């Protein structure tokens, strides 16, 4: 399969959106593009599995490399392993749901969809890049659409949130940039190509400097404590689709970068700093959970719980065992789908009640059975109910963490496990207040979900169930990729 298609289709969609005359055409153009993306990523999954079945054992499949700034040994190098395929699949799910959920956006519709599609373009490119420069390019492509989406279509303190997000993410990119340049000049082969870099041994002193730069830089994107502050503000101020993309896709860029670039290229650096990563991740998990308990705004609840959930991703990476890393990837995919759905549901409720304060809602199950049911599903997924995706992912991480036999890792695992109780508290309380109980008089005449909202929700619920009920296909998908990373870590 030609991976270039996954960049060209969003690009063509973005251009088509710009050329469409009316708002309806814009929406349909964007939806068509999103459907094609979903089909393509589904096809990619099939092609990938078929290729592995046929016995292809190279780390990356469907590689292609084109000349691009050869003077700096940069190339347009694309390729995927199972981890990338999983992330691409996640992206296409969130994109189609995001496009559907924004169906009723009336303000500057064309610009909105253009930026949304541009954001997805950046994510696809990022997950397929096998060149550090190209990867960095796609990482930054997504910053400006995020800024504009929040600043123009957002609500509340949107300018403040947009600025904070753009500057913190830029700060993260700056660290990544220094790390990348350090890697480039730190080796004798002087290349940005990740495959060539992973084939050689990068000197330990270079790793010790560049690993923290890269890890913290990417970590900022995925709410690494104490750089998580953009997450609550950014997510809660963004429009619904913006929050879905931010939490569902953008935060995963960071996790993927931490794994693919920082850990896989610099295993010795990872070992050196794994204690610090684990401590920070545990703090994020617990702090995020407790902070969520204090929130009354529904969007803030999900935003802070994202800090907690993304902490699991970093925890899994920091544990450096194969099971934990597999779990981290599972958690990225699971949290991506789950949080996108959560934000979508919150958006649907807000559309109708015009409030996000949990205390002001109540009894919504009576008037909006569909939306409330989805809310239950997503809430239970978030607190880790078996059968839904959150359980499969977090359980894998815990098992992987426990494989480290020393006291430090065990304590960290226990601490992280404790957060599940806290999660149960805030999720059940929030859902209870929103959906159960007596209904407010003002809310009696509210309507249930529209066709586009239902479609979006069903697509994402399908994703949650697919991972939760049968995690093995995703585990098998990720497995060879995790194997290669473990090989790198294992070799001194």
């Amino acid at each position, binding site marked *: 399969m030609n991976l270039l298609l996954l960049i060209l289709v969003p690009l063509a969609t973005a251009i088509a959106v710009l050329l469409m005359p009316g708002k309806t055409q814009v929406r349909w153009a964007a939806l068509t593009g999103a459907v094609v993306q979903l089909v393509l990523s589904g096809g990619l999954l099939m092609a990938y599995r078929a290729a592995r079945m046929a016995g292809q054992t190279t780390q990356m499949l469907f590689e292609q490399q084109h000349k691009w700034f050869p003077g*700096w040994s940069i190339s347009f190098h694309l390729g995927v392993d199972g981890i990338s395929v999983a992330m691409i699949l996640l992206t296409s799910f969130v994109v189609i749901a995001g496009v559907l959920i924004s169906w009723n956006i009336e303000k500057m519709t064309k610009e909105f969809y253009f930026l949304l599609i541009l954001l997805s373009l950046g994510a696809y490119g990022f997950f397929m890049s096998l060149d550090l420069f190209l990867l960095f390019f796609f990482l930054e492509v997504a910053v400006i659409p995020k800024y504009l989406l929040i600043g123009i279509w957002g609500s509340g303190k949107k300018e403040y949130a947009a600025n904070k997000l*753009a500057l913190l993410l830029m*700060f993260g990119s700056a660290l990544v940039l220094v790390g990348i*340049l350090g890697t480039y*000049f730190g080796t004798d082969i002087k290349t940005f190509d990740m495959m060539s870099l992973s084939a050689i041994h990068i000197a330990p002193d270079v790793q010790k400097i560049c690993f923290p730069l890269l890890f913290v830089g990417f970590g900022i994107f995925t709410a690494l404590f104490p750089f998580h502050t953009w997450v609550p503000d950014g997510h809660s101020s963004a429009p619904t689709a913006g929050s879905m993309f931010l939490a569902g896709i953008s935060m995963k860029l960071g996790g993927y970068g931490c794994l693919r670039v920082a850990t896989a290229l610099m295993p010795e650096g990872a070992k050196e700093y794994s204690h610090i990563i684990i401590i920070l991740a545990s703090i994020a998990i617990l702090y995020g959970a407790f902070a969520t308990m204090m929130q009354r705004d529904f969007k803030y609840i999900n935003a802070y719980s994202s800090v907690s959930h993304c902490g699991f991703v970093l925890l899994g990476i920091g544990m450096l065992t194969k099971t934990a890393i597999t779990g981290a990837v599972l958690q990225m995919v699971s949290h991506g789908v789950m949080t996108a759905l959560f934000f979508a549901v919150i958006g649907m409720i807000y559309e109708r009640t015009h409030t996000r304060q949990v205390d002001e809602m109540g009894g919504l199950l009576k008037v909006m059975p569909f939306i409330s049911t989805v809310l239950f599903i997503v809430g239970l997924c978030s607190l880790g109910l078996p059968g839904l995706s959150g359980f499969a992912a977090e359980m894998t991480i815990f098992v992987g963490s426990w494989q480290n036999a020393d006291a430090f890792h065990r304590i960290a695992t226990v601490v992280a496990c404790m957060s599940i109780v806290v999660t149960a508290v805030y999720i059940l309380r929030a859902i209870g207040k929103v959906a159960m109980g007596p209904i407010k008089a003002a809310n009696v005449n509210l309507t249930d979900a529209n066709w586009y909202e239902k479609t979006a929700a069903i697509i994402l619920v399908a994703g949650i169930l697919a991972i939760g009920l049968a995690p093995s296909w995703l585990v098998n998908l990720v497995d060879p990729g995790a194997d290669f990373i473990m090989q790198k870590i294992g070799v001194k």
Partner: protein
Amino acid sequence: MNDFLILMKPELAVTVIIFLLLFIKLGKGMSNGNMLLLIQGLLLLNFALGFVLLDEGSLFGGLYKTSLLMAFQKNLLNLGVFLISLLFADWFKKSEHLPEYFMLMLSALLGMFFLISSGNLLMFYLSLELASIPVAAMANFDLHKKISSEAAMKMILSSAFSSGILLFGISLVYGATGTISFDELPAVINGGGLQVMAFIFLFAAFAFKLSIVPFHFWTADVYQGSPAPTAAFLSVISKGAFAFIFLTALYKVFQPLHATWYNLIMVLAVVTMLVGNLFALRQQQIRRFLAFSSIAQVGFILVALLSNSPSGTTAIVYFVLIYIFSNLAAFAVAGTIESQTGKTTVNDYKGLYQSNPFLCWMMALALFSLAGVPPTAGFFGKLFLITAGAEQASYLFVIVVALNLVISLYYYLRIVRAMFMDKNEHPLPVMTVQFPVKLGLILCAAGIVLTGLISWIYDYIQLLS
């Protein structure tokens, strides 16, 4: 004779246009509109000519030298001047002395051509004067505005001051080494105290022209007071030309003093970036804002100078090309708004997107490119500047430079925020964007998007340097 014609083709072409304009001016009866069209045509032809009949060599016993890279650099400036003639059509059509203005601009351009090609400090000094004095006159062309004459006054005084310093430096160089030829100097420079002092004086003159901190004080006032095309010319064309000759001076002539200028440049790069960025944060006037932003951009150019290798040359020439597109587009939007409504502050731009989406997108694209955000070309330009410099620098330095990227993003976003997000009951009225301005902006936008993504432009420059 043939050598003379081919090697000096860029200079001859510009000279011919200057004389042509002079004769047309002496005759009479040509409306501003037709005149502008003619000028645009001539400048386009001039730019096209820059692609053919290229050769390398030297003339007049080494006074004048040219190479393929120099021819390319000159043609970049030609492109910039052509774009200026398109982008500021609003102002040009109102101008009372259109041909004179272009004669002055082309004279300055001619000076810059000789500057790039100079092979001797004498030639260097003469062409530097030719490149500076007409610009001071151009700064005074808003004849009814007091602030314009003030700008011209500041410009000419600071130019004179820097020329004085330069001449002193040149005489010291001659005193210390006994030669002023670029070819002979590297062999006789050995790092003696007097030579270093002479170098510092020369360096100061460059710093004035490039507005490197602490020699930047004239910049904001002149950019604000002079007519929009003059400010654009100064910030883009003039900066580009001086950056090119600075490369020759540091990499070839003063190569033996590498240890000295390396530290100097490293410190000045950081200081220039920081001062430009921090002052730009607070500016309310768009032109002053662009002035400080361009000071910060010079800081980034200095970073690449550290590389002391062809990759530095490539990165700088490439960056100047991108800078021409980005900064000219930003100045053009500001200039169009100013000439149609007289509004010049950031607050006036609030809610501009409601009334003028085209201008806003162009401005946003230009600002993103200046900030170095992909997919604009500015991203590639900035990254290669930093990469070139990073080879010879410490982690700490690279981190400081990268953090400056973040600061600069903040203030570029300020303008974007005003245009796209801030609410305004009475945004500026709908403006008519004239055809040449529109064409120019679209050319710039194409340049901003394509120059980065298409890597062969970079490869070509690399081949030359």
